[in-house]
């Protein structure tokens, strides 16, 4: 395991772009996966068109691009389970939690019970979350 010299910081990945139209969503996910080895305190926020990254049933056969959405399911295995979705953004797009992939993790402090990784947050909650961070990486 790599590490960062014993320091633990709060990292927030802010995702505001839709998938496929540009590569930011995919390459953001690549940072998150690599970053998992550093054992930092990681949160992901999905805001604006970023919420579309978590839409279920993505199927890219027709456009010849790789469907990377299954990778979000692996985040729980990397101990990345704080995934915050902006409720306003979701509602503006006519979506609800049911339209998103069901991302979960196994809680090792609770007998490995399977728990949801996604939390819907309102503006105030999201703003408060952002204010707790040490490092904000925007994509």
């Amino acid at each position, binding site marked *: 395991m790599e590490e*960062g010299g014993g320091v633990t910081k709060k990292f927030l990945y802010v995702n505001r772009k839709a998938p496929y139209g540009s590569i930011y969503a995919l390459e953001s996910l*690549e*940072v998150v996966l*690599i970053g998992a*080895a*550093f054992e930092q305190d990681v949160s992901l926020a999905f805001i604006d068109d970023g919420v579309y990254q978590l839409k279920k049933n993505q199927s890219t056969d027709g456009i010849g691009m790789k469907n990377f959405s299954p990778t979000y399911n692996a985040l729980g295995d990397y101990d990345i389970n704080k995934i915050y979705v902006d409720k306003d953004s979701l509602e503006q797009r006519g979506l609800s939690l049911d339209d998103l992939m069901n991302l979960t993790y196994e809680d090792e402090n609770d007998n490995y019970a399977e728990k949801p990784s996604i939390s819907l947050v309102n503006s105030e909650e999201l703003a408060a979350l952002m204010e707790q961070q*040490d*490092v*904000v*990486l925007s994509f």
Partner: protein
Amino acid sequence: MKLGIMVSEGPYQHQASDSAYNFTKAALEKGHEIFRVFFYHDGVNNATRLTVPPQDDRNIVNRWSELAKQYDLDLVVCIAAAQRRGLLDENEAKRNGKDANNIAEGFRISGLGQLIEAGIQSERLVVFGD
């Protein structure tokens, strides 16, 4: 203060690289330390030595190389992003069976872990993109 910089867009197409350069230079002039400049996404294209910009325009790549020399800056190009976009150093070219490389002086290719490390080691990280 120790600062980290991330550049997410290539030269000329977007202002991100210009803004990052002007910011980095100002920070250095004020005596701050730049822990690392990390080039990600199309930002990796800032590291090609093959650009030939018009005579009356700035040379974005050379400017970074010179700043790196002057201040001993660590300019890191993300390997995964670079491979997708065709930015290689001599080792990478050899490893991938390519007949040429195009990296400019003062840049080095490394992994995404270098970005995380920049986040950990820098007191502030600033992202320049589109």
